[in-house]
């Protein structure tokens, strides 16, 4: 059940952009991908060239009115997640986070309750950061009590990196040290991201040579490897092995290549 949770304690850092880019990148790699917009805003569709008034079918709706762009199926998980039995549905496996399909959940920054709930079922939690002071200042909220470079299923992506800015350069250096291999990618700040939305086109269509596009594709490749290597929580039920570090080893090769990328 490769559910990938995209959530950051800070809003406006590019969580939706990264969720969209991951979905598009994984789809390009041949994976079946469903992107779940779990936000009230419903903004992620704009990275697919869709209009503001283009509705997304709900997670639980019949699949007749599919909205799919470039192989990515788009759904709103808003209604489902507002229902009282959503937690139970997740728990009992009612929601189809299984099989080969990647489910990528875009969760609003303030929605910690939902993020926490989905995190329990997620193979990977991708947390976007900006190289900006306010983004760094909220880092202690991500996983209180655990060093951020020792987290097993939470990884970080530094978005909107702009090396012409002094604080951004310093923040990038600092984060590489603080997060270690858990900083799996960095995405450059690229005005084409904004322009593509303005053109109502995907970034790949509008600016195929975009630096941010190349960065996010790289990220998708890393996430693909990480999610295939790390076992789902459910797979581990009944095994009595205790912490063997197995999952860590399986993740390590790709992560070290990712971190050399970031370095």
């Amino acid at each position, binding site marked *: 059940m490769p559910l990938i949770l995209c959530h950051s*304690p800070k809003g406006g850092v590019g969580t939706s952009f990264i969720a969209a880019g991951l979905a598009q990148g994984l789809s390009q790699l041949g994976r079946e991908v469903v992107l779940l917009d779990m936000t009230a805003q419903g903004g992620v569709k704009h990275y697919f060239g869709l209009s503001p008034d283009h509705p997304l079918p709900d997670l639980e709706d019949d699949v007749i009115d599919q909205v799919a762009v470039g192989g990515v199926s788009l759904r709103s998980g808003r209604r489902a997640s507002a229902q009282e039995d959503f937690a139970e549905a997740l*728990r009992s496996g009612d929601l189809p986070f299984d099989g080969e399909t990647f489910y990528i959940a875009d969760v609003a920054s303030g929605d*910690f*309750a939902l*993020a*926490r709930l989905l*995190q*329990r079922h997620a193979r990977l*939690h991708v947390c976007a950061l900006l190289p900006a*002071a306010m983004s*760094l*200042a909220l*880092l*202690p*909220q*991500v*996983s*209180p*009590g*655990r*060093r*951020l470079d*020792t*987290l*097993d*299923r*939470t990884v970080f992506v530094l978005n909107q990196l702009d*090396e*012409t800015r*002094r*604080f951004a*350069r*310093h923040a990038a*250096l*600092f984060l590489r*040290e*603080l997060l270690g291999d858990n900083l799996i990618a960095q995405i*450059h700040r*690229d*005005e*084409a991201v904004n322009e593509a939305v303005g053109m109502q086109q995907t970034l790949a269509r509008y*600016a*195929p*040579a*975009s*630096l*941010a596009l190349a960065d996010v594709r790289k990220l998708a490749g890393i996430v693909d490897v990480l999610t295939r290597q790390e076992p789902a*929580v459910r797979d*581990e*039920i*009944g*095994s*009595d*092995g*205790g*912490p*063997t570090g197995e*999952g860590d080893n399986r993740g390590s090769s790709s992560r070290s290549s990712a971190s050399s990328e970031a*370095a």
Partner: protein
Amino acid sequence: MRSDAANLLSRLGQGKFKYQEFRDNFADMELWPLFEALIRDPRISGTDEDSRSLFTDDPAQGRDTGTPTIPHAEPVRVAGLFGGYGAQASASPPATAPRRPQDDVRSLLKRLNDQVAAGEL
């Protein structure tokens, strides 16, 4: 990147802009007390087992280590996964021995210094 810029760069044999002129003095890093405050923050250094997220809606939930609905064979890793957002922040000690914050700051700054000196940064 716009395609005209990309074309220009590819003619110059560059995939992307390189800001080589922005070499930072290591001393500049000390400009930012926020960095040091983060390293010293017990929620990040792993020294505060009682800390939990501001967003925990039910503080008692954070101490509920017996959550029967989340079966998992690896308690320590569960703590890492679910410790996020305060769900089980105090369930288990950190996987690795906590570093002393004082050492953290020094060793971090030293590592950065070494990298700057080696021209890696």
